Every structure is written in C-alpha cells, then in structure tokens.
C-alpha cells in the first residue's frame, strides 16, 4: 500500500460590502507526506451526539469538511466538545485546517443528522 503522498491546497477568499468595497486573500501550498497510515475521505452522516471525523493521529492532520445538508448547521470540534469549535458550517459551507497534534476531530449535528463531505489525512513529523 502506498505510504507516501503529495498534498496540494489552494484557497481563495473574497469579501464584498454593498458599498462596493471588496477585499481578497489567496494562498496555496504543498505538503510531502511520508509513511502515512490514515487517509480518510468520502461522505459521512453526522449525528447530533457527535461523530468522529478522524481518530487520534500520530503527529497531526489536514482536515476538510463541507456541510451538504440543506437546512441545518454542523459544528466541527476537537475532543468531542462543541465549545472547542474549529468551525460552524451552515449548509453549503466548508472549512480547512492543519493541526499538528494528536487530538480527535469530531463533527456534531445540531437539530438532526447531516451529511458532510470530508477528507482527513495524517501528516508526518516533518510536514
């Protein structure tokens, strides 16, 4: 099984006021990953009681989640605690982060179960 990977990320954000004022920020980078054991991706139903997106990695992880639900938001948090929220995703919204720690990433639906699109990839000590 493949153990070595290249991860590429590119993000473009823009905010615009009704006055016409607008600002934009972009970024992109790559990570060379060696000896990786956890690569998870796909779609997942997230329960109101919380669903694990990624179990504890050895060194860290890159994580992306997109809320595919039409109505309800979902909270992405660490250590199964919504008060430690990384993201609160309304329908259609997504987030991306890099965490160099061994914490578990959870998703917690608010009103009813929601489906999310996601990836969670372990990164090595040098990434």
């Amino acid at each position, binding site marked *: 099984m493949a153990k070595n990977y290249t991860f590429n990320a590119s*993000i473009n954000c823009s*905010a*615009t006021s009704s006055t016409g004022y607008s600002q934009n920020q972009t970024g992109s*980078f790559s990570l060379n990953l060696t000896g990786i054991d956890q690569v998870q991706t796909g779609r997942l139903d997230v329960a109101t009681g919380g669903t694990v997106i990624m179990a504890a990695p050895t060194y860290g992880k890159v994580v*992306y989640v997109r809320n595919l639900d039409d109505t309800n938001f979902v909270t992405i948090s660490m250590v199964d605690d919504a008060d430690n929220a990384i993201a609160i995703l309304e329908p259609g919204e997504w987030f991306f982060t*890099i965490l160099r720690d061994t914490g578990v990433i959870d998703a917690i639906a608010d009103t009813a179960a929601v489906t999310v699109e996601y990836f969670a990839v372990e990164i090595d000590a040098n990434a």
Partner: protein
Amino acid sequence: MATMATTFTASGSFSLTDESGTTVFSYSPTFTSSQNTTAQTLYTGEHLAQTGGSELALADVNDDRVYVFIKNVDSDYPVEVEASAAESSALEMVDLKPGECFFTPMELNSDGTGSSIKVTASTADQRIQYLICDALDN
C-alpha cells in the same frame, strides 16, 4: 441608520496524490454567503504574531460567527491560531507553518465572553496576513 451588508465567497482546491501518481482525492468546494445585513466589519491586513500571543483587532466584530482566512507569510516558524476566549484545553484551531493558510467559519464566543482571535508565533515573531468578515449567525 445606516447598515452594513456583506457577502463572502470561499473557493478551495485540495488534492492528494500517492507515490505512483494516482490521485487519491480531489475536491474543489466553493460557496457564496447570503448577504449579511447585520455585518459590523470586514477586516484585512498584515499582523506580527508574537511569541507570547497577540490579538487581531476585532473590537467591533459580531462575535457569533466570522469567516476567517489566515496565511503565515513569514519564512521561519509556525503560528498557532485560536479563539481568544476558547476553553483552556484544546484551544488550537490551526498550526500554520510558513507559507501555509487556512479558512474556517468560526465562532469567537465559545465560552460566552470572547470577541477576538489570538495568534501565537513559536520561537520568534512571525508575519501573517488575514481576511476576516462577519458571517450570518447560526
């Protein structure tokens, strides 16, 4: 009384390729928010994240939810980002090495008191660039 109305668009491209050149996954998400007619601010700029922690100036931000993009534009050390009023454990929302960036719709007020973002550089002060815009409440 005047009001401020903002919209926010976030687009991304993410892919993972294995050592034999096979694409494991590729995602290109995008969304544009509904117009937020209760917005209070749209911030962008460059900030020197300090080793003891420093806060992005968000005095007038709506603290329920904000769109946050941050990029480490320095060349030496990682920068951690957290909601300044998050709980005492597992604070960190991202750990950015030089050149890396992240985006999230985040809550600044997880413990009911906060309204700012804390950035902490390791070893020596590091420059970051950011874009922060009020989001509609969840």
